[in-house]
C-alpha cells in the first residue's frame, strides 16, 4: 500500500484552514499532519515534521512569501501557494520565491487534490479556478 502524502497547511483564516484540512483528509491518499496559522509556525513545523507538500496562504502574519523563499533556500520545493485574488501580484512573487504551484481559494476539492498530487511529483500546477475579471 502506498504511503499517504503528508501535507502541512498554513493560513490565518480558521474557517478556510478547517475546510482545506477536511478536504485533504477526505482523500485516502493524503493527510494533513499539521496546521500553521502564520509563517513562523509554518517554518518550524516543516523543519520538525518533514512533510511531503506544503499548502500556504500568501497574506498571513509573518509573510507567506518570505516563508516560501526560506523553505526554498532550505531545499524544500514542493510548495503550493493559495490566494483569494486572481492575477494577484503576490502569486507571481510566490512562484519566483520558489512555489511549484498555486490554487485559488475558491478551488473545488478535486482541484486541490490534483494540485497536491502533481506538486508531490514535482510537476507545477497553476489554478484553473480563475474567477471572472473584477
Amino acid at each position: 500500500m502506498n504511503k499517504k502524502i503528508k501535507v502541512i497547511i498554513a493560513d490565518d483564516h480558521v474557517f478556510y484552514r478547517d475546510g482545506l484540512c477536511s478536504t485533504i483528509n477526505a482523500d485516502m491518499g493524503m493527510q494533513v499532519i499539521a496546521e500553521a496559522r502564520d509563517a513562523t509556525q509554518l517554518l518550524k513545523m516543516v523543519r520538525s515534521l518533514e512533510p511531503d507538500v506544503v499548502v500556504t496562504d500568501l497574506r498571513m502574519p509573518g509573510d507567506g512569501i518570505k516563508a516560501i523563499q526560506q523553505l526554498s533556500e532550505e531545499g524544500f520545493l514542493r510548495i503550493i501557494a493559495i490566494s483569494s485574488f486572481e492575477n494577484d501580484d503576490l502569486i507571481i512573487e510566490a512562484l519566483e520565491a520558489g512555489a511549484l504551484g498555486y490554487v485559488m481559494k475558491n478551488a473545488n476539492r478535486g482541484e486541490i487534490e490534483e494540485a497536491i498530487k502533481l506538486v508531490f511529483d514535482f510537476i507545477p500546477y497553476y489554478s484553473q479556478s480563475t474567477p471572472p475579471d473584477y
Partner: protein
Amino acid sequence: MALVVFFVITILRYHRKMNNLRREKIKEEINSLDKEKERISFDLHDDLGASLSGIKLRLHGLGGLDKVNFDKVVNIENQLDEVMNRLKAVAVTLMPRILQRRGLDKALQALLKEFSNTTGIEVTYKCTVDAFNADIAVHIYRIAQEVLTNIAKHSKASHVTFTISRNRHKIELNIIDNGIGFNVKAASRNNGGGLGLQNITARAELLKAEIFLTSDKNNGVTYQIEIPAA
C-alpha cells in the same frame, strides 16, 4: 476709489481662499472614503470570501450521506455559491481591482458589461484615450458608477452611449441615455440634486472639471464632463 478696489480684491481673494479650502476638504473626505472602501472591499474578499470558501470545502467533504441529506448539502452549497457571488459583487462595487490592475478602459468595459447584464439596457462604448493618470481614473470611474446608477434607477432608458475622448486641453466624458429625462433646473435647485448628482459634482470639482447636464422630457439625458488634461 482705491479703497473700493482694495475692498473688492480682498473679498475676491477671501472667496478664492475659501473655495480652495472647501475643495481641499472635499478632496480629503473623498480620498478617505475611497481608502475605506478599498479596505472594506479587501476584507470582504480576502476574509469573508475565504471563510465561505472554507465552509464550502467542509460541506463538500461530508461523507456517508443518504440521498436526502446529500441533496440538502448540495442545496446549501449552491446557496453558499450565491452568497459568495453577491459578496464579490459588493466588493467589486466598493473597489474594482481591475481598475488598479488593467486601467480605466478595461474597468469601464467590465462595469458597462455588468450594467447591461443587470439592467437589460443596451450600451455603446468607445474610448479613444490610451492612458489615464491613476487619480483621474478613479474619479472618472466613480462618476461613471454614479451616472449609471442614476440611469438604472430613474431613466427607463433602453440605450446608453458612453464615450471618452481627449484632445490637447481636455478629456471629455459623454454619457447619453434615451430615457424619460428630468428637469435639470429643478434637480439643481433641490440641494444640488440627489445624492448621486451631488457625488458626481463633488468629484468633478476635484478634477476641476465642468459638468454640462442637458435633458428634455422624454428625450433622455446627456452628461457631458470636461476634465482639464493633466
